[in-house]
């Protein structure tokens, strides 16, 4: 019995040693020292002025979810809204701070469809799987009419390949492809028969009356309020400056060039800046870059999450 008690005491002591710091206690960290992680791809554009910052890491989108817990959790993380909200629900010690991309989804036509109108019977390619954002947005906008001829490609890159070749990876003809920028831009350049068919942001606005929401900024609970506020203020200023003058983004992204740039950012900077300069059907930049404090658009966020089948968010998860 004594031995058992001793083992229990040792185990309890070890558990106490391994316990992370109380997340209610803010630690001292300045804006310059904040560790930031974003997925490669569109969100990197928002951090164009941080490329040289050694605390800023860009990683594969699929792997970023592993960072919500553990000692390597960054102070600031950019992920898609629903993943972040789910992570917080599952115990991640983060708060939702801001939304920085408002949708860069489009439907491209391969030029195969004779009547040129997307209707039942046409083959449509989506990327990701049935639980991912493109599929949920698609079904919210277009219902189940196309389900019999929906083709799922693993990622946006494979879907872009379908728009270029007009065939899916099994060699079957496709009519329409649901894609994100800048993959759409690359695909349209390579297939002269392909064209832009629909702007999903516009379709979403027409149906819901709200803005589409994509990438969100999450901040660790133990980052002091003043630091969070200063960081968000700087982020807002830099994003707005780039929207005003896209050359600023081009300059910021020029830290890396050629193959190194594509490996660092997950896109060709010249292509992304080109797309960034274009306007979508709603008159905002085609990359969907923007800045809104999350708490200010809680209603939009909740409406968007309901499209994805997620419950309303609690005010507690927001940065004030």
């Amino acid at each position, binding site marked *: 019995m004594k031995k058992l008690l001793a083992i229990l005491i040792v185990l309890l002591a070890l558990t106490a040693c391994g316990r992370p710091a109380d997340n209610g206690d803010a630690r001292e960290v300045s804006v310059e020292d904040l560790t930031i992680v974003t997925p490669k791809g569109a969100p990197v554009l928002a951090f164009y002025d941080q490329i040289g910052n050694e605390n800023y890491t860009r990683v594969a*989108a699929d792997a970023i979810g592993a960072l919500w817990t553990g000692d*390597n959790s960054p102070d600031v993380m950019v992920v898609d809204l629903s993943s972040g909200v789910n992570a917080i629900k599952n115990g991640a010690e983060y708060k939702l701070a801001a939304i920085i991309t408002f949708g860069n989804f489009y439907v491209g036509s391969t030029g195969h469809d004779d009547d040129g109108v997307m209707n039942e019977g046409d083959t449509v390619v989506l990327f990701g799987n049935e639980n991912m954002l493109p599929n949920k947005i698609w079904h919210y906008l277009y219902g189940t009419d196309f389900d019999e001829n929906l083709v799922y490609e693993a990622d946006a890159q494979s879907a872009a*390949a379908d728009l270029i070749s007009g065939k899916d990876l099994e060699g079957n003809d496709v009519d329409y492809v649901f894609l994100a920028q800048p993959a759409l831009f690359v695909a349209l350049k390579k297939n002269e028969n392909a064209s832009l068919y629909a702007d999903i942001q516009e379709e979403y606005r027409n149906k819901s009356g709200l803005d589409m929401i994509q990438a969100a900024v999450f901040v660790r609970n133990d980052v002091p309020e003043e630091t969070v506020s200063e960081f968000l203020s700087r982020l807002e200023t830099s994003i707005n400056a780039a929207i005003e003058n896209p050359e600023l983004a081009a300059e910021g992204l020029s830290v890396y060039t050629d193959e190194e740039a594509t490996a660092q950012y997950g896109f060709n900077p010249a292509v992304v800046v080109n797309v960034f300069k274009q306007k979508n059907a709603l008159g905002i930049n085609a990359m969907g870059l923007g800045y809104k404090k999350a708490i200010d658009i809680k209603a939009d966020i909740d409406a968007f999450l309901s499209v994805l089948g997620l419950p309303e968010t609690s005010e507690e998860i927001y940065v004030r």
Partner: protein
Amino acid sequence: MLGLLLLATLWQALSMYIGQKTMVFPDPLSTIKYTLYLLGRPYTYRCIFSTMGKMLTGFAISMVIGVILGVIAGNNGFIEKIISPTIITLRAIPTASLIYVFIVLAGFRLAPMFLVVLICFPIIYEGTAGGIRNIPDQIIKASKVDGSGYFMGNLRIKLPLAFPYILVAMLSSFSLAFKIEIMAEVITGGSNPGLGSAILGARSSDPTNMIPIFAYSLIAVMIMLMIDLVSGLIGRSRDLN
């Protein structure tokens, strides 16, 4: 030479067949051209050295752990039985799922290296333990008569005798380590240079242009061929001695 010609013909035929269907399978000539372009870029060498550096560090760690534990288990059947379930489990766990565990534990930069350790260590452990176990009893008895202790007996007699087994394990796990490192870099896609990160970047920036991906892969194949050649030469010189 005939083998290479056959490989090139097969590759060309595949690119003509698959390429016509989906426009994503490059032909050998375009790939070789782009490989030569990449070999002229400093960034490519930074990727090669970074990948090789992490892979070699991981491999060295697995060598140290694998050989030490292999010697202990090779000498003691009880310990071997205790370690055995862990080794079997490590060999069976899908590599891709472990990478996410290592991202949490070690971060994006070091996760691929730890994956290499975990994949190579069981192979080297088994090679070492097997080599020690297969040393004839007479030699072990003779070394005890000579007064060799546990440490010196293992270091001077058993390890050299088990070396051919360890060498086979090393060679088979080395090429695996290289492939695992690149695959892990593709999955994690960290900001550091690496052949895997370069492949991921090339795929993201232009999904339909598979030439850069094939070119980086060709560079990896060339490195492995060179390593194979060097290890073959080492093996041959050892046989001659």
